[in-house]
Each structure stands twice: as C-alpha cells, then as structure tokens.
C-alpha cells in the first residue's frame, strides 16, 4: 500500500470516531470566574472576615498558605529560620497590581499599616523584638529579605505569617500581589506575572447581591461561588467574637454571667455555621464547649458598647446584649463603628465595651496571643507568650496554651461569645478548590470543565 493510500484508509477509518471530548483532564483555560457576594462581604475590603479574606486573597495573595495540616507552603515568600528569628525571603518576580515589585521595604510598610489597624497583625508580630522599629527600619532600606528577630522563642511564627492579616499590600490595602489585577471595582483580569502562574480563568467578576439573588445566581450557574451564605461542617470555625471591656465595666459584664445563653445567641442572632464559645479558645482549637451557669444578678448604671456596623451578626448580638443588660437594670448605649474605626477608637479609650471579631490562627498558642492582644495588657502577653514559646514540642505547646486559656479566662477583660466558620457555597462543577488551615477556600487553582 502506498503512503498516500495508507493515509486515505486511515482517514476513512478515523471518520467514524466520536467527536472531541467535552471533559478536560487538564485545566480548562479561559472564561470568567464569577463570585456572588452578600453586601456585608463586599463591605469587608480589608479581608478581616473569612469571606472577605477569600475575596481579597484573589486580588492580594498572602505570603504563604497554611495547608489543612498546618504546614506553611511558600507562595510569595520562603521563610527561613535564623539563629535569632525568621527571615522572610521574598520570591523574585512578585509584582503588585500597580507594577511595583514586592521587596522587603514594601512588605514592611504594609505591615506598619497592619499593626496600626489590625489586632491580629499586632498579636502575630508581637513575638518579634520591637516590631515597629524593625519594620520602620526595613521600610527605609531595600532588598528582598526581611529579618524578623525574635524577643523570645516562638516556633509558630512561620505558620502565623500565612495569616491573611499579614498579606503584603500597599496604598491602604488597595494594591496587592494578586492572581487577578483589578480593572474597576468589580472586575479583574488574570495576572500572567503571578509567581505561581496565571489563574485558569481569564477574568474575575464580583457581583454584590442580596441573599436570594445570590442563591439564584449560584443555582442558575451565573455565579460559581457564593460568599456570605452556606455552611460546611468539615471546615474549622476560627472567626471568633469576643466582648472586651474596660476594668471599670467589669460589674456590667458580670451581670451577663447568668443571663447570657451563648447557644441561644448563636441560634437566634448569628446563624450557622457558628458555635457557642464559652472559653477563650474555640472548640476547633480544643477550647471548652460548655461552662457552668450562675444565677442572674441585678445592677444599675449605664455603659457604651461599640460594635462593627458592617457585620449583621455583631449588630444583632449587640442589640441582644442591650436587652439582656436592660433586664439586669443597666442602660447599654450602642455605638456602631466602621471596622477600622472600631479598633482605633477602642484603643483611644472610647467606649466601655466592644465586640471584637478576629480570625484566629489554627494553632492554640498564637490564637492565645490574639486573645491577649484584645485584652490589651502588653506586659502580661509578653510573659505568657515567652513561657509558651519555650515549649519546643508542638503538641505540648498547644496543650499548654489550652491550659493557660482556661487559667486566664476569669482574669482577662475578654468574654468569649461565639465562633463562626466560612459562609460559602460552591458550584459542584468547580475543580481543584481546597481549604487552607484557616478554613478559607483557596480558589487559586479553580476551574470548571
């Protein structure tokens, strides 16, 4: 058979084959990744809530990713232990959406701003020796590595540097090293410069919708991810809300003791996925699941409670606390604040009580560091953390942290209330979506056939 004939025969034979497959063993490239966001999720531009952190993570990647087992995976930086601390070695090629390269100066400047606005950032960097001075110095020098000398041993530092609160950002959080580069407020395009490669979709679209409209969008497949609604029991719940108070307001808080039913609070005012948090550490980190109740007492007077006005859960809980304290004879005035203003005003001495919601790291010792930061006693925090950091074994350190959380519960001006997980729903057709150690969705590799 001649070559030509052989080709003809083979072509004729192949004509009867079924058409191209519709499914894809490799990721499909292209399309627009559509996220439906509830208004409160869209309001959280700085990514303090789990849902806000998932959205912001697409536009501003964190330094590293904590995998579900708690190991850091490098993303924008490698973390290296040195004799007196940890060095953050930034990955070459990481570029902000504005075009600026990510260097040690940019990272340090971003962290200086984070220290100013986020209690979580302050807590996670508190084991660093004079963090403000170290960062101020680094922000004036160049280079691609940022040394973080430690005040005392702190084996959990690497894992906590992956926290979304320490994501490198510029311009007040608007400029990040993202998988997507913003084009207007609700659209972004895939970044080919991202160090781990461009995302598979070509574009990202954010739609702010009511709960009903967002659910319909997901069902109608005009959105692939819904943030702000939905539950997943498998994910750890680490977004913890505490009632912090001034020393003078302690009698007021004591009145809540016999009146506050955390489980009912969660059921009626917070909504799932959430759980009552009777201890300083949430159940996901081994905190207690119940505490004994005492008989309700009565008092008098008045107090001011600050809360974050953009969080519907906090508003509902603040109103509930107002009613509980009115029953106890105390006039509670509610003072709503923007998320950033709440931290600033509380630290400036305003208000008697405040609701504080923080995304805890998934390790007990650094989680306790965050609680101690909310308590506001720097000297106590340093003492406690130095003792915890001196325990080299991770499991022993975690159980010591749980013990200390129990021991400190009655002494700290911090009343644990409840803990929430990520509220999200996914199109089941999405491939390669995973969860990190914080219980957040990692959508970097997401695609659909």
């Amino acid at each position, binding site marked *: 058979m001649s070559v030509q004939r052989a*080709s003809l025969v083979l072509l004729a034979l192949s004509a009867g084959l079924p058409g*191209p497959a519709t*499914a894809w063993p490799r990721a499909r490239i292209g399309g627009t990744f559509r996220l439906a966001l509830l208004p409160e999720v869209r309001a959280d531009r700085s990514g303090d809530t789990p849902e806000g952190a998932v959205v912001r993570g697409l536009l501003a990647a964190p330094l590293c990713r904590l995998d579900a087992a708690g190991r850091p995976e490098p993303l924008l930086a490698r973390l290296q232990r040195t004799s007196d601390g940890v060095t953050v070695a930034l990955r070459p090629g990481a570029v902000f959406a504005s075009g600026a390269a990510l260097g040690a100066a940019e990272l340090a400047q971003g962290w200086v701003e984070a220290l100013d606005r986020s209690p979580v950032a302050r807590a996670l960097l508190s084991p660093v020796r004079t963090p403000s001075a170290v960062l101020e110095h680094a922000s004036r020098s160049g280079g691609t590595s940022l040394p973080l000398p430690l005040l005392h041993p702190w084996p959990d530092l690497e894992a906590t540097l992956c926290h979304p609160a320490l994501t490198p950002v510029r311009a007040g959080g608007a400029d990040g090293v993202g998988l997507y580069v913003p084009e207007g407020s609700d659209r972004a395009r895939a970044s080919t410069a991202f160090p781990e490669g461009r995302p598979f979709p070509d574009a990202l679209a954010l739609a702010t919708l009511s709960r009903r409209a967002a659910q319909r969008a997901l069902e109608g497949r005009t959105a692939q991810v819904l943030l702000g609604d939905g539950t997943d029991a498998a994910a750890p719940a680490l977004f913890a809300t505490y009632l912090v108070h001034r020393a003078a307001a302690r009698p007021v808080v004591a009145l809540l003791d016999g009146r506050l039913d955390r489980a009912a609070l969660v059921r009626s005012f917070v909504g799932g996925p959430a759980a009552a948090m009777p201890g300083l550490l949430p159940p996901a980190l081994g905190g207690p699941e119940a505490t004994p109740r005492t008989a309700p007492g009565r008092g008098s007077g008045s107090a001011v409670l600050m809360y974050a006005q953009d969080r519907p859960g906090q508003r509902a809980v603040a109103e509930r606390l107002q009613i509980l304290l009115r029953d106890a004879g105390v006039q509670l005035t509610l003072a709503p604040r923007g998320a950033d203003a709440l931290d600033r005003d509380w630290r400036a001495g305003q208000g008697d009580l405040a609701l504080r919601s923080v995304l805890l790291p998934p390790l007990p010792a650094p989680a306790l560091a965050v609680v101690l930061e909310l308590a506001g006693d720097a000297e106590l925090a340093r003492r406690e953390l130095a003792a915890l950091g001196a325990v080299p074994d991770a499991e022993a350190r975690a159980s010591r942290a749980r013990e200390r959380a129990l021991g400190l519960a009655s002494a700290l001006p911090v009343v644990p209330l409840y803990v929430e997980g990520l509220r999200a729903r996914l199109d089941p057709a999405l491939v390669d979506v995973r969860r990190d150690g914080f219980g957040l969705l990692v959508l970097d590799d997401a695609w659909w056939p």
Partner: protein
Amino acid sequence: MSAALGLSALLLAATPAPAIEALADQLRDALVAARPEPPVAVAVQGTSAALSESVGTVLAARLSGAGVPAFVLAPGPDAAARARGQGARTLVDLQVRVDGELAAAGELRSVWRNFWAGRTPVETGPARVVSAAAPADAATRLLASAGSSGTGLVLDPAPLARFPFRTAALASGDLDGDGRPELAVLVGEEVVVLDPAGQPLARAPLGELLPASAPVREPFGTLCITNGQLLVAWARAESGLVLQLRGNQLVRTGTGIGPTLGCGDSAEPVTFVPSVARLLRVRGQERDVLWGGDARGGNRLLLLPDGTARWLTPGGGARVLGQVGAGAALVSWGGEMRVAASGSSVGRGEDVLRLLGPGTQEATLAVPGRILQVQPTADLGGSPALVLGIWTAERGSELRVVRGTR
C-alpha cells in the same frame, strides 16, 4: 487462532452477525460497481482474527453471489503477491474495526502484471478506495474482542510512590549504569530519582532556578533519560538543565535544555507555551499546540487539547484517536507499537487507561485518580510495564505500575 476460528464458525453457523452482513452488502455494492476483473482475493485485517475471518468470508460469499468469483486471503504486506500466486486478478485489501460502529475501509486494485512492462512492476487497472460502516451489534463486538484477552492490563495494588504535590513529568531509564532502569519524577519543586522499588535514590531542588517570565500554574514539564543523563525541562523555570546521578547525588552537568516530545534519538524539540501547560510543535507551516506527546521508533504521538490524539506512523500514515487524555505514550508492547492513553473525562475519582493497537482498542483498565503521565519502562519484573503519574485529590500524586497479563 483455532479457538477464534471455531468461535467465528459457531457464530456464523447460527446467524451471521447482521452488522457484518450489512457491511458486506455495502462493500459488495461498491466493489461490483468498480467492475473488478475476477477472480477477486479478499484480504481483511481486523482487530481480531475472528472478526477478519467473518468479514472476509461473508464478503467473498456476497461477491461470488453477485457474479464476481472471490476467495479469502490472509492479510499481510505481501497480500498482492500471494493473490497473484493464487491466480487472482484483483485484490480487495480492507481494514476493519469496531468503534461504536463496525467500520471498514480499504482499496480495490488489480494484481495483474503487464508482462511487456519489463522488470519494473507497474501496477495498472482500476484502483479504488472503498469504505463502509454499519452500527455494531453484540455479536460483532464479541468477534472483535475474541482472542485479545491475552493483552489484559493489571494495576499493581499498591502505589510505587506517593508525593504531597502533583507530578509534572516522568521518565524511565538507566541513570547509574547498572543496566536496570531508574525512574525520574518532576514533582513539586524538585526532581526525584527512584529505584525500581520506588525508593528515592537522589533529589535535585529546582526552586533556585531562574523563574520563567510567564510561569505555568499546572505542574508541567518534560524529563528524558538518555546516555546516562537526565534532561529536565520545567515550565516554571526560564530554562532547563542536565543532571547526572553520582552516588546519591544529582549533579548539574549542563543547562539550557528545552522540552522534547519523546526521548533519545527520536526526541523532537518543542517549546513551552507561556503561562499555560501546553507544548508548541512547529513543523514548517504547521503549528500544533499540545498537551504533550511522545516519539518512539519513527512514530509520533501528539495529544491535542480537544481530547483527541494524532498518531503518525513511520510510513506517513496518520490516525486520529478519540477520547485521549493528557497522559499517553507510545509503547512497544508484545512486539508491536501501541499507544497507552489516559481517558479524556474528568470530575470523577477514576480515569481509564487504554492500550490502543494498530487496529482498535485492545484493553482498558480503570485507575483511581487522574492519569497525567504514562511512561513505559524496560523492566519492572519481567513483563511489559507502564508507570503512571496519577493526580489524587488534595493536590497529591502517586506513581502506579500497570503490567500486561500476556
């Protein structure tokens, strides 16, 4: 062979498979219209001896019934000479396979040789391409699969190795000069060399290489072991490198390596497409964007991102394979060149490995996970073997061995 013939005789004796009858009727009409000079020799090459015999017998009977005396001839490259030797003036040379439908295609040509043409064998007379197809039925499928049970595939129950990251490339070959093949795996940000039992012998980190200006998100690259050297091309790095195994160290002995289709003498240089897990093959005016491919013994296998593959044979033939995934290799199996290919479906926890011969599909094997790499290996215990790079859930991967039961 005799068992296959017996089976075919049994089936034909009962009721000839209607699909084969319908096919034979169509072929008869096409052949008779070409007015072949009798007698006609019918040579049918099918995926099984039983299928070839049945189609040949029925077609010869149909032709004879239509006034064209015909007989069945064993297929083969020298069919024309044998037909001439048996007194035929015309040869019908057909290929038959079952792929959803029973399809046949081939040619009709004169085997009469003009004495006056001298020593040069000049072919004259009518020559025509004929083809036909009919919906396959159960009996046809049974005939097509008869006798092919000897090429079954078996998956080793335990993985050879497991990794916390996904595999980007896989190669097999002798790196330490002991005559036994080692396995090299590009996984995460390193190359790992494993012994045949799956134990790591050496590692080489790649994280310090200059990053590619447009890196690729999916794990992607090519590996090749040739002349005791390991050639590494990684889509996340600006350029690849050459490594040699010295003791338990992988030593860098060269740089500037790009990706290739296949390995060794038949390797064909290609390039990475920026930002995406694709290879670009440029041949003159032709530009193919590929998931991957292979080159071996003059054959080329090109995996196209639409879920099809092109198999280019040394003679210049081209065959299109359907439903082929991102992992496939050319493999010399039972003395014949075949394609071992993953499936093109995704979203389930299971993939399919298929061994495709010169005819149609010969064996399939369900494999848990997604097969992204298929690597034939010389010897993992005697029988022909394939090593699969499989992506598991949770961003991990494993290597698994598939053996033939022949």
